[in-house]
């Protein structure tokens, strides 16, 4: 191939006609905002002015380095650049490649792009503002030299086209930003309207009793000497309305605390039958004069875990409603029974029932169903909204139905168990007795934040006294009331992870059917991770991860690495409890955790990508799920030894002799650092062998072929590929295709050939999908 230096054998001056075409093309480029049209204008201009046969425009995706050919119709067709062809050359060096055809018809000229392979080819990178957007290729049917005027012409034309690309890119980014802002504004407006509507409702509800108080007080004052004024009755009404106001304010506060998640659950085991009977007894003064009776049926020995104060209030609200709507002499049925892992209760009256249009709204604040028009029915309009809040806080659900021929039935279902087992509480007490573990938990939260690239991380532990979960360490929740963030070991995301002991990845909390409604405004992203912290096979807590810094969703790769890291912390805690006399165990673990944090913060620029490729390649080779998880985890921490090299590793200066020594020994150093956390021999094996070579010339042990553990061979391939394609793939480093090609050449020497091919299949599938 002849590069941009061909001496022009027969210089052909670009005439005034060429220049006028150029100026017309530039004018046209300036006035269109359509990228397809811009490409057509620039290409046609080059073809006509230089007598070329065809042109092509390639677009290069900035992040992946993927190349596609832009068709005139606007569609893009993926294109794989020829090995060592002009496209690869132009991308790598960001210079124009002018091939005059002197090297003959067989020279690489991106044959697949053309109907008829050109015999001379100009390949021009489209660069603007330091970014490469694509390439303009102009093909000629005959070999031809490019004289200086023509080079200037092509340069000017491609620069103008690059500007069009940049404009189009900026416009796209602007549109995205606009859409994002509009969405944020829309949400905020909806929130504001919602709270304004609530405020206006609250104001109305408060004014009603105030109106009566003011009117009666004034009437009393105006009639101090009037014997006709029923002063005692008026004072009684003022007193009643004051009580009503007090109840209303109390209910509003109660509801807002429930809704803001500020009311912690105080859980204990309840004697449900006793609680229901006490509730009924409290309502007798209102029921008995009306001849209303209760029928209570509670399954024997039903003793669920719940907050007794809240549950009593829930029952009072439901049964109190039933009393209000019951006809004189009516019967109210209250039932409770077991339902598998849950229990369910219902309150049924023989009142007028609720209009079917109103049924869906009865749990809304201040909603009064249509049969409630009669002023004889007292109430704040908040009782059922509070009831729903109480049920949801316990991780349950509440519903209502109208009965035939008359009556209303409210029912709710709650998890039977809300508290940690007594064994878990015993271990929790032991953990709490070790103050040095507090430091380990703080450092763990830091490590998780760095590894998952997350803004908010919290570690919740079982409270040995209360049996629920509390926040023991956190990041990103500064200045918030964490006492209110307690949760049962059943309800919500953290509770269900604690209950089932399985890690959880929620893609979108607002649409997730399991946990919708539980999102909190502080979570900017809708995706979250939650994994259990196990000690001696008991779930002792959970780690919650929210707000990925990049704004993207967490995925299964993140979840797998997080689980592996948290498992290691769990085993360190377990050892600490087993050796209560030794503080060495914990301080070693703290040091290892700190190293992982530093590794993630300073050195893992491409950590997520490496983890993903390691897992995908391991799966491709046929590893089992557990082994795949190990591979992902090792890929994220195998370079721990590099943290000892400090900033030197990130600089471009060559390492000195000592540095090189350390570099060669970093697998062993990594091993030494992770040892306090690591209990799997296979992990240590993989870390130690990932710089071995297939041909036996690697380090530190000089193993050969299949002597090298499979995991080490996989990591060697993935590690090399990830570092070759790091950063901007088309530029300082290599494109994916180039990197893969290079690795194929090393297959059988540095790498296990089978694994290189497995990686190739993984990449091919992913590019096909992209």
């Amino acid at each position, binding site marked *: 191939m002849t590069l941009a230096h061909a001496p022009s054998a027969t210089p052909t001056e670009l005439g005034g006609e060429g220049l006028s075409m150029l100026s017309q093309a530039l004018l046209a480029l300036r006035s269109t905002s359509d990228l397809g049209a811009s490409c057509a204008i620039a290409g046609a201009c080059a073809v006509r002015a230089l007598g070329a046969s065809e042109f092509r425009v390639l677009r290069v995706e900035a992040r992946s380095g993927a190349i596609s050919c832009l068709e005139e119709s606007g569609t893009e067709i993926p294109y794989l650049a020829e090995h060592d062809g002009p496209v690869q050359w132009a991308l790598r060096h960001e210079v124009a490649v002018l091939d005059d055809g002197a090297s003959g018809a067989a020279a690489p000229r991106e044959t697949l792009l053309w109907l008829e392979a050109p015999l001379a080819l100009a390949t021009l990178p489209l660069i603007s503002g330091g970014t490469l957007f694509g390439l303009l290729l102009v093909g000629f049917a005959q070999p031809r030299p490019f004289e200086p005027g023509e080079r200037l012409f092509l340069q000017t034309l491609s620069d103008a086209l690059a500007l069009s690309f940049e404009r189009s890119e900026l416009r796209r980014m602007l549109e995205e930003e606009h859409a994002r802002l509009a969405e944020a504004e829309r949400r905020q407006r909806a929130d504001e309207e919602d709270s304004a509507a609530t405020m*206006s409702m609250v*104001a*109305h509800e408060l*004014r*009603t009793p*105030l*109106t*009566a*108080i*003011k*009117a*009666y007080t*004034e*009437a009393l004052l*105006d*009639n101090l000497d*009037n014997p*006709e*004024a*029923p002063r005692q009755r*008026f004072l009684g*009404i003022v007193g009643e*309305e004051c009580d009503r106001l007090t109840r209303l304010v109390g209910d509003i506060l109660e509801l807002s605390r429930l809704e803001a998640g500020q009311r912690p659950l105080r859980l204990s085991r309840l004697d449900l039958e006793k609680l229901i009977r006490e509730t009924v007894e409290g309502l007798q003064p209102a029921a008995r004069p009306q001849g209303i009776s209760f029928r209570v049926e509670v399954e024997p020995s039903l003793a669920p875990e719940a907050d007794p104060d809240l549950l009593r209030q829930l029952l009072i609200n439901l049964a109190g409603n039933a009393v209000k709507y019951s006809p004189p002499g009516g019967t109210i049925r209250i039932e409770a029974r077991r339902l598998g892992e849950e229990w369910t209760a219902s309150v049924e009256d023989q009142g007028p029932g609720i209009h079917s249009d109103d049924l869906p709204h009865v749990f809304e604040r201040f909603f*009064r169903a*249509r049969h*409630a*028009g*009669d*002023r004889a029915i007292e109430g704040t309009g908040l009782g059922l909204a509070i009831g729903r809040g109480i049920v949801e806080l316990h991780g349950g659900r509440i519903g209502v139905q109208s009965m035939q021929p008359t009556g209303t039935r409210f029912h709710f279902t709650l998890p039977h168990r809300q508290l940690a087992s007594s064994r878990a509480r015993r271990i929790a007490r032991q953990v709490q007795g070790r103050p040095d573990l507090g430091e380990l938990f703080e450092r763990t939260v830091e490590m998780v934040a760095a590894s998952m690239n997350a803004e908010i991380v919290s570690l919740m532990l079982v409270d040995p006294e209360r049996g629920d979960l509390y926040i023991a360490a956190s990041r990103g929740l500064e200045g918030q009331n964490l006492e209110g963030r307690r949760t049962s070991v059943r309800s919500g995301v953290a509770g269900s992870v604690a209950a089932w002991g399985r890690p959880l990845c929620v893609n979108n909390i607002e649409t997730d059917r399991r946990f919708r409604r539980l999102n909190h405004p502080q979570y900017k992203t809708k995706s979250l991770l939650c994994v259990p912290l196990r000690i001696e096979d008991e779930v002792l807590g959970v780690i919650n991860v929210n707000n990925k810094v990049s704004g993207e969703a967490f995925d299964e790769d993140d979840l797998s690495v997080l689980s592996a890291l948290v498992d290691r912390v769990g085993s360190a805690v377990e050892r600490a409890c087993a050796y209560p006399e030794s503080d060495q165990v914990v301080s070693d673990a703290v040091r290892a955790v700190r190293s992982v944090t530093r590794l993630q913060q300073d050195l893992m620029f491409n950590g997520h990508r490496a983890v993903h490729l390691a897992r995908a390649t391991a799966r491709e080779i046929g590893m089992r799920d557990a082994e795949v998880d190990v591979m992902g985890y090792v890929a994220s921490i195998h370079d721990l030894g590099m943290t000892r090299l400090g900033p030197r590793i990130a600089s471009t200066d060559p390492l000195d002799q000592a540095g090189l020594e350390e570099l060669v020994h970093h697998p062993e150093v990594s091993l030494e650092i992770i040892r306090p956390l690591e209990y799997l021999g296979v992990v240590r094996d993989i870390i130690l062998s990932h710089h071995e070579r297939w041909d036996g010339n690697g380090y530190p042990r000089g193993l050969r072929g299949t002597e090298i553990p499979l995991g080490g061979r996989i990591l060697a391939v993935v590690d090399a590929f990830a570092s070759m394609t790091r950063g901007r793939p088309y530029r300082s480093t290599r494109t994916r295709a180039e990197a893969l090609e290079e690795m194929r050449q090393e297959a059988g020497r540095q790498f296990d050939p089978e694994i290189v091919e497995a990686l190739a299949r993984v990449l091919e599938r992913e590019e096909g999908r992209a």
Partner: protein
Amino acid sequence: MAKGRILVVDDEIYIVHILDFSLGMEGYEVLTALDGEQALEKARAEHPDLIVLDIMMPKLDGYETCKLLKSEDGTRDIPVILLSAKGRNVDQKIGFEVGADDYITKPFSPRKLVERINAILGQTSPHRMQA
């Protein structure tokens, strides 16, 4: 002989009671209704001299009731004073648009309400006449 007959409409029974008392002390005869539908029936049947009408009520709210009263020949000429916990300008505007003659916000002073009613009906207070 009563000074006039006034229909008081509110779903809050205590408000109805105190207006009944205050207006009764003033020498008016008071009719009462607890919602918009009852109010329409009584207005048609009894043709009171003035209506005090709450806005936020179940079934038929004050605005709708007022609109209907002002659209019927038999009740169009009865003055209406709207009474509501809503105090924003936009609500007052709607009140006048539906044809209300006056507008008083809760919490209100019964004494002021009486003065407004007196003004509309061209009456003066018997207390003041004595004074």
